[in-house]
């Protein structure tokens, strides 16, 4: 009997907390937004694939009866193969081109089963996003599969021979991309995308920690009943706000550093001697990113991280200053962390081109700024970076100003008071 009352009390106390309800709403909005973004991304992907598959642009670097017959069969199979003289010509009309390179026939006819016919492909990217890259790659790989299926049929038609089926290969290193007028291999593009996602995640994660620390520490000060004593001291409120922001930054960096070191230790301890090549692979990718993006690669993380920490610390101080206790503050700051990470990475899965408008959006979110840095570097367009950083810095100053204003208002002492029925009461 008592257990029932105890359980009901546990649930009721939490449900009566408006911050808990607010966090549920925020989480719902977050997951709905992630679903919506994914849906938009997938729709774009499907649409792109549909458009691309309507025509197969081909460039032939080697003229042989086999390739001619293969193209005829390909055209008969998918009905819209168009032959171009050069890759540039093909890409002026299409977003990708499949190339039959020199040596294709030799690979197809070789008795050596290790030697396989190779295709090449060049993909033109309007924006550097997971969706646009994956959709184009999936199309050229589909073409490869069709060519692979048609090869034994064509050989039988031409030479009246039956040979053991060979797979036509289109490895990643044979896929080149043209992005922002630069030619990059698919491995390089994937590496840049991986670097961007990792950088965004790191910035967003540390921002989340800073918000959480700032919010809970500020609210805890109220619970400890030291807050009013502090505010009654002859210290400008802006100094109290700045101290809280700087404190949360220091704690977040310490936390992030410990997490990073712990993860590295975990990876080191988990790795067997045989898998040490994995570590070399990671090092190679990092080295590659640094080589490709220049020595500024570290700056791409450090600058957004610095702004992000100040920004998120200020948001945390705002949340903590209007929260009556640390439980409310932590309940409010937790969904904010999800928002930093979710919204930060969402852009990577949309084929949004980086332009002044999206640069402003990414500046508001702060966490995707490493991505803006990279795009700005690749496209040699520093304006985008200036817009993104300018937005973030402006917003950062605005949030700090809001925190200072709140600290100079009654709300910092009284907390948020929800409107009640209009009646005169005495306090």
């Amino acid at each position, binding site marked *: 009997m008592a257990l029932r009352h105890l359980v009901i009390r546990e649930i009721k106390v939490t449900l009566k907390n408006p911050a808990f309800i607010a966090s549920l709403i925020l989480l719902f909005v977050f997951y709905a937004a992630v679903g919506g973004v994914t849906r938009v991304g997938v729709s774009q992907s499907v649409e792109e694939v549909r458009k691309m598959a309507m025509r197969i642009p081909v460039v032939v670097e080697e003229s042989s009866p086999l390739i001619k017959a293969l193209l005829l069969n390909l055209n008969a199979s998918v009905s819209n193969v168009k032959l171009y003289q050069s890759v540039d010509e093909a890409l002026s009309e299409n977003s990708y081109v499949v190339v039959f390179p020199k040596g294709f026939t030799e690979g197809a006819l070789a008795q050596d089963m290790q030697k396989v016919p190779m295709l090449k492909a060049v993909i033109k990217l309007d924006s550097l996003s997971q969706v646009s890259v994956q959709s184009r790659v999936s199309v050229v790989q589909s073409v490869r599969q069709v060519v692979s299926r048609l090869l034994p049929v064509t050989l039988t038609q031409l030479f009246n021979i039956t040979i053991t089926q060979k797979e036509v290969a289109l490895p990643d290193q044979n896929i080149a991309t043209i992005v922002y007028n630069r030619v990059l291999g698919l491995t390089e593009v994937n590496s840049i995308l991986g670097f961007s996602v990792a950088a965004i995640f790191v910035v967003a994660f540390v921002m989340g920690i800073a918000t959480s620390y700032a919010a809970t520490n500020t609210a805890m*000060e109220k619970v*400890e*009943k*030291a807050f*009013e*004593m*502090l*505010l*009654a*001291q*002859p*210290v*400008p409120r802006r100094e109290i706000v700045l101290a809280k922001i700087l404190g949360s930054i220091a704690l977040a960096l310490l936390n992030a550093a410990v997490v990073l070191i712990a993860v590295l230790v975990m990876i080191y301890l988990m790795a067997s001697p045989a898998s040490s090549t994995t570590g070399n692979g990671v090092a190679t990718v990092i080295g590659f990113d640094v080589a490709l993006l220049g020595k500024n690669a570290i700056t791409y993380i450090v600058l957004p991280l610095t702004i992000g920490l100040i920004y998120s610390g200020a948001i945390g101080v705002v949340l903590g200053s209007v929260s009556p206790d640390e439980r409310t503050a932590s309940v409010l700051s937790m969904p904010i962390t999800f928002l930093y990470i979710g919204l930060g990475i969402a852009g990577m899965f949309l084929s949004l081109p980086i332009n002044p408008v999206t640069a402003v959006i990414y500046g508001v979110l702060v966490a995707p700024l490493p991505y803006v840095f990279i795009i700005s570097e690749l496209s040699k367009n520093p304006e985008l970076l200036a817009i993104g950083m300018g937005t973030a810095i402006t917003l950062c100053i605005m949030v700090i100003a809001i925190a200072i204003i709140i600290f100079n*208002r*009654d709300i910092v*002492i*009284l907390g948020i*008071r929800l*409107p*009640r*029925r*209009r*009646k*005169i*009461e*005495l*306090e």
Partner: protein
Amino acid sequence: MSSGVAVEVRNLTKVYGGGVVGVSDLTFAIREGEIYGLIGPNGSGKTTTLRIIATLIKPTSGFAKVFGVDVVKEPLKVRQLVNYLPEEAGAYRDLTGYDFIRFMLSLRFSGRRLEEAVSEAIEIAGLGSTLKRPVRTYSKGMKRLLALSTVLASRPRLLILDEPTTGLDVERSIQVRQIIARYNREYGITVLLSSHNMLEVENLCHRVGILYRGKLVAEGSVEELKVRTGSRNLEEVFMRVRG
């Protein structure tokens, strides 16, 4: 006792969100060097009044001045003149008592003056080696003494104390009252305090103001109020003036 005005409150009104009235048209003055007590039941507006004078919240209308300085127009200047001990004031639970004293006083003093103030606070607190322990291990009375020691050692011109002995045992309450009286006497510190405890106010305060439903319903020395209302003690005074 000096004759200058330490606190001047005129037509002070505070209406919270939702129309809740904290205080309404409150007017009173406190002389320099005086111990002035605000008494009244829960929700009568005592804490609201103290918070406004301590510059923590702003009035809806009217004004309050501390030694002639307006609490809304020049809050930082006012904070240099006052120190405030909130009701149930605590301390940062993971700091030691010593660290808390040092931190709070470092916001006002530096160098030699800071060291002197810290020593003074340690003496007032009288917690001995307990000051080396984290505040979370302290009893309520110890926390109260710790907080009180920092505000007294800062020797403000006006000391604002919200329910300084609430929740303390008799021994601690007497100790706190003695310390307040000593600082008022020795350093001429003006004290504005609120209390539920009529006996405490009767023994400690030179003058009292009785608040009821946000309004000041009576004011004067304890003896004056007793004579005026024909009461034997302050409790009877309160019951008669509230109507």
